[in-house]
């Protein structure tokens, strides 16, 4: 009796042990998959690299400009014969050593002088350094051109009303920029920004957009 009970008890124990071993083997089998951890390391590192390098591309933009178009004159005709050209503004903004000049087909406005002037009224436009609060040298643009005044004038032209009270140049969107040969590119881009204003679809002037089609012309010699 005792031996039968003992056999039964041992049989049960063996069955439980087999079950445990089977479970352990199954667990081991699951753990024997391809080790993805090294791959995961590579992927994480690559993603971090991409995140770090793509931060720069988010901060970039384009400024679209075009060159002046040249057309052969048609014999027997002149530009003034074309009715579409007759009332054209032909706004031209020149960046000179001493400030901005604004001209159009109707008139040339008085020069806009610099906010701060060097000798002979020249505008400062160069990279300079100054010490910050911590005493470190910081590079900054020393720029004395009066962009605020330029914007005021540009807005005035865009929203100019004739004697009948109609906006004369509201549909004009083109402006030509020329500059002295040593004017830094930074000043040219800032002038373009000022002339363009905020880009909108209609660009009517009162929406903050002035002349959004910029043509770069050769420098003033």
């Amino acid at each position, binding site marked *: 009796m005792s031996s039968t009970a003992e056999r039964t008890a041992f049989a049960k124990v063996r069955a439980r042990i087999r079950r445990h071993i089977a479970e352990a083997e199954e667990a081991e089998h699951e753990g024997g998959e391809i080790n993805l951890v090294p791959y995961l390391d590579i992927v994480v590192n690559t*993603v971090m690299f991409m995140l770090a390098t793509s931060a720069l*591309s*988010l901060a970039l*933009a384009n*400024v679209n400009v075009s060159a002046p178009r040249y057309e052969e004159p048609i014999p027997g005709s002149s530009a003034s014969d074309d009715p579409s050209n007759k009332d054209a503004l032909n706004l031209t903004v020149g960046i000179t050593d001493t400030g901005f000049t604004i001209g159009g087909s109707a008139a040339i406005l008085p020069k806009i002088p610099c906010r701060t002037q060097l000798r002979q009224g020249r505008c400062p436009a160069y990279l300079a350094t100054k010490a910050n609060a911590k005493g470190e040298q910081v590079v900054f*643009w020393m720029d004395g051109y009066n962009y605020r005044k330029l914007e005021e004038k540009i807005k005035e032209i865009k929203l100019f009303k004739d004697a009948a009270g109609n906006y004369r140049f509201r549909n004009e969107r083109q402006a030509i920029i020329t500059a002295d040969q*040593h004017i830094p*590119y930074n000043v040219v881009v800032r002038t373009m920004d000022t002339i363009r204003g905020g*880009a909108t679809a209609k660009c009517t002037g009162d929406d903050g957009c002035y002349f959004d089609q910029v043509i*770069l012309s050769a420098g003033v010699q």
Partner: protein
Amino acid sequence: MASVRMRAKKQYRKLLKRVPEHDDVSHLNITPMMDMMTILLIFFLKDFSVSADNFTLSEDLTPPRSASKVEPKRAVQITVTRKAILVEAGDREEQVAAVKRGQVDSSVKKEGQSGYEITPLMAILQKHATRLKRIEQLTRGKQAFAGEVVVVADHATPFRLLSEILYTAGQAEFGRYRLMVLQGASPTAKN
């Protein structure tokens, strides 16, 4: 009977010790994380490959800041640093002319010091124009030659040098320019 049960339990515990223990770490399910990472990686790789910017900011090359929000677009890129003019050639950039004190040497200009056309730049841009026109022909106009160049220039570049580059590009049938700038108004833009 009780002793039998006791012996059985004892043997059970003894045998149980031989059973390998469960490794909890192996059960950490990393598959969702893997999926997420792979999707992110593919997105970044794709974004990286079509990214229009192909330059590194340095002391010699810092584009100006602008309020423009026009998305950068890929086109033939001309890079103007304080030391050289570079044009893309395949996967790399090739130096076409050296720049000293904001100007190129008169020997590389067609008409000398007063000239506007930079001869080596003209040659490489003409090659690009021919290549792009050939692509237009082969794709039957689907990839039309737009005559666009992207100009990445340092903020201190004099307007004369910029004019020379744009003039040369214009002569090589690239009449539309995209000036690459850093987004955001200049710190003193409100002046």
